């Protein structure tokens, strides 16, 4: 599989997964505001958008395995940076919450926080490697 094919395959999964995530989020938020629902049902509904995020994460991991060895190495370096940022933040903030009563940050923000740090790292790593856009 060429790099372009891998990228196209990733986008084919990413776009509908994100569209379904947004739709389900809006749908569930609307339903919650306009109807009283039992707690077990809310738990079940909360899983629906999560499934689309999990599908997207799986698609991203598959995309990385489909890249060639050099591009995969760049991706792994960016992922390591993203993980380091999120682990450092969660350690520091977690201790601040425990010891200094800092306001709690919802764990939901781990994924967007990771992807933000990873994306920034990939821009820098990609630029250094002479990659100008095109690939994630």
């Amino acid at each position, binding site marked *: 599989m060429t790099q372009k094919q891998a990228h196209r395959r990733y986008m084919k999964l990413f776009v509908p997964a994100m569209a379904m995530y947004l739709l389900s989020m809006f749908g569930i938020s609307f339903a919650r505001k306009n109807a009283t629902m039992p707690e077990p049902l809310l738990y079940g509904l909360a899983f629906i958008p999560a499934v689309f995020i999990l599908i997207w994460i799986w698609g991203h991991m598959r995309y990385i395995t489909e890249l060639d060895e*050099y591009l995969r190495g760049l991706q792994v370096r960016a992922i390591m940076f993203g993980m380091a940022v999120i682990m450092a933040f969660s350690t520091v903030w977690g201790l601040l919450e425990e010891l200094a009563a800092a306001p709690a940050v919802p764990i939901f923000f781990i994924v967007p926080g990771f992807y933000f740090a990873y994306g920034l790292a990939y821009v820098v790593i990609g630029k250094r490697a002479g990659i100008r856009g095109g690939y994630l």
Partner: protein
Amino acid sequence: MKNRLKVLRAERDWSQAILGEKLDVSRQTINAIETGRYDPSLPLAFKIARLFECTIEQIFEDNQGEENAQE
């Protein structure tokens, strides 16, 4: 690691994209190998050697070996 990939490619009048296609890797990967920013894995080095009908040693220069010999 120094290598003769650019010379071998130029001899055949191939672009980096064409060589990438033949080796099933990206143009960026070919560029990184040619400029010495990336050392290919052993399977990719064998693939390159097979494509150009050379041995790996004829394409890639073992700098570490030279350094060890000088010591």
